[in-house]
């Protein structure tokens, strides 16, 4: 982090210039600092420096009981809090080895997919902003607002929900939730086409994103890139399919992968397009789940106190940004000994310097936008 001298002249070549992009910069998506060595407009070296949002999440967890960790998990990926809750709950449930009622699983899937839509909307909007298109951002944000309204009706919170708990969810669905969700899906189906008209097919947008920042599949895997960013490179790796958790094997959906329709496989446009297609798939899943949701008590499996056995567990979850992992070591008490979170955006960001070097400053913004990072999760 930041204390190393801000302008390090010793390592600069004569025609090089060091730019500090961030911590306050419109397109670093939070308080990320990129130390960029440039030769004119061309970027020759990027050194991401993070930690400005570091809150000692893992240290906190070592002092809190399993239930108390949930709100902290929320705050990691603040754009997809439900996914974080869900991922953490899955890990604790795996540690406790408990079965959940059907209804809870259905609710969780519905919520998670709605959250994926909301998160991808922000990703797409800010990506548009990064390449200079302002209007898509306002559109996506206003549509995300509808999802957030749904969540507000569900649990009262708009950003940090604290809704999915180990062993269940905090409340049952409100009666009107299902109707409102269907209403939203119908609305969003139409809106989706408008996005394609505004941004996807725009020649300037394609010019800016196609063939830019190509992540080859093997390099992506080597760096641990996951989620839409990896699928954009054509790797068919989605935990909902490859290692199904919850009840995802019950639903029919595709895993969209980048095909290089506008340029090379794995370019920024592919990553963008994979996110667009994933929203479509998420809508499909939500419709299926809503059609077949059973009745039941959502609190049935909720443990009174969480006291797992001694041991450790590693659980994985496909969040909007990729592969969230929780490694929990328990010593039999109600406080974890060690809780390590594998942050997808952390790994996704690590490939930035590999991919963006040799491109222009504008492309760095594009590539960073296409990786869709959330700093709360990177710094934890």
């Amino acid at each position: 982090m930041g204390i190393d001298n801000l302008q390090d002249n010793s390592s600069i070549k004569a025609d090089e210039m060091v730019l500090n992009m961030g911590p306050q910069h419109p397109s670093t998506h939070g308080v990320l600092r990129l130390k960029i060595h440039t030769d004119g407009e061309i970027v020759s070296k990027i050194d991401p420096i993070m930690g400005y949002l570091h809150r000692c999440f893992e240290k906190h967890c070592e002092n809190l009981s399993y239930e108390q960790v949930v709100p902290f998990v929320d705050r990691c990926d603040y754009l997809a809090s439900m996914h974080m809750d869900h991922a953490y709950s899955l890990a604790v449930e795996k540690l406790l080895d408990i079965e959940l009622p059907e209804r809870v699983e259905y609710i969780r899937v519905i919520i998670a997919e709605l959250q994926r839509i909301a998160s991808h909307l922000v990703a797409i909007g800010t990506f548009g902003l990064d390449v200079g298109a302002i209007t898509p951002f306002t559109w996506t944000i206003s549509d995300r607002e509808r999802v957030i309204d749904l969540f507000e009706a569900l649990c009262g919170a708009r950003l940090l929900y604290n809704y999915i708990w180990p062993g269940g969810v905090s409340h049952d669905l409100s009666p009107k939730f299902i109707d409102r969700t269907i209403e939203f899906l119908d609305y969003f189906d139409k809106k989706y086409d408008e996005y394609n008209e505004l941004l996807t097919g725009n020649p300037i947008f394609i010019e800016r994103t196609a063939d830019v920042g190509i992540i080859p599949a093997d390099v992506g895997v080597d760096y641990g890139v996951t989620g839409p960013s990896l699928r954009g490179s054509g790797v068919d790796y989605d935990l909902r399919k490859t290692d199904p958790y919850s009840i995802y094997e019950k639903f029919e959906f595709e895993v969209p992968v980048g095909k290089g329709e506008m340029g090379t496989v794995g370019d920024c446009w592919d990553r963008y397009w994979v996110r667009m297609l994933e929203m479509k798939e998420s809508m499909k899943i939500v419709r299926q789940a809503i059609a077949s949701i059973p009745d039941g008590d959502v609190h049935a499996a909720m443990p009174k106190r969480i006291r797992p056995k001694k041991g450790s567990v590693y659980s994985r979850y496909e969040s909007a940004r990729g592969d969230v992992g929780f490694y929990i070591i328990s010593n039999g008490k109600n406080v974890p000994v060690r809780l390590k979170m594998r942050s997808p955006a952390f790994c996704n960001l690590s490939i930035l310097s590999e991919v963006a070097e040799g491109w222009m400053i504008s492309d760095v913004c594009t590539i960073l936008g296409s990786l869709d990072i959330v700093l709360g999760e990177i710094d934890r």
Partner: protein
Amino acid sequence: MSSVVGSLNELLVSLFSDISLDVSFLFLLAVIIPGVVIFLIMTVNAIVAVYMERKVSAFMQDRLGPMEVGIFGFKGGKKFWGGIGQTIADAIKLLVKEDIIPNDADRFLMILAPFIIFIGAFVTFIGVPFSEGLIISDFNIGILYVIAMSSVGVIGIILAGWSSNNKWSLYGAMRAAAQIISYEIPIGLSLILVVIVVGSLEMSEIVKWQADNRWFIIHSPFAMLGFFIFFISGVAETNRVPFDIPEAESELVAGWMTEYSGFRWALFFLSEYTNMLIVCIIASVVFLGGWLSPFKIINLPYVDIIPDSFFILDGFYLGLFWLLIKAIFLIFVMMWFRWTFPRLRVDQLMYLCWKVFIPFALGNLVFICIWELLF
């Protein structure tokens, strides 16, 4: 002399003929009054254009835009006119805002730069017509003058970016300089088309030719292509989306304006919107018939589709109206661009200019000569 300075001078001389005032003093008055008027036009234009920009963007983004600050009884609510006083409030805020000059900046140049840009825009206005005879000074080098003066602003931009002592500003300045200098070439080349056909650089002559024949945009396919090249290059010349790489909010924060605040920044803002207006007026005058009414796009000597009585729509005041309508429409198109397009990258921008526009503009030049010889 059919210009404002000239007629104003005559008017003043005749008014004050009984009081023995120095003639040169009157001439000075005749120069200063239009200057004040230009400044007022620039200010009003910026205020109206900003309000328009906000409402247009709000319309395109499914929102309302400013709705709270009202004047003259228009206020808030769900009415379209809500927030009509917003830009005035913003202007006042800008003027009373603290003015910051960074410690290591070059003070003198940093203060000088906004004025160079402003004066560039201001002086250009002298050659810009608003209606028949409503031009501060109708030079016989009209178009050339406008091109010349609009190229002054770039020096202010470079100085602003450099003197801020900020790397982002410097990048913005370099990009701006490269961009504006490059796009001056297609602009000049497409304006030469009309000069070749009309045989004069004078604004009033150009419009007179269009009144006698037809709007220049439908003179030939090449003229139409020339119009598009001119207009798109004009968008680039005014640093607006999709060519706003010198500001490039998501890349360079605010480009060469990053370190400016308050009054100085307001000057930049004023100049930007003034340049927009100038480009749009020039495009209307040169290609879209200037102050001619749109009912008379083609002047066919033998066929009278529209009765002559319709042509009372032309005239001094209506001419002003038509010209402003055309210019405002073009400004709207610029705003439309801004709120729908992403931004080009700097190399793509240069590619567009040097490898697309300039060859086409040069080709145009050749073909329009052939066209003139043939028809």
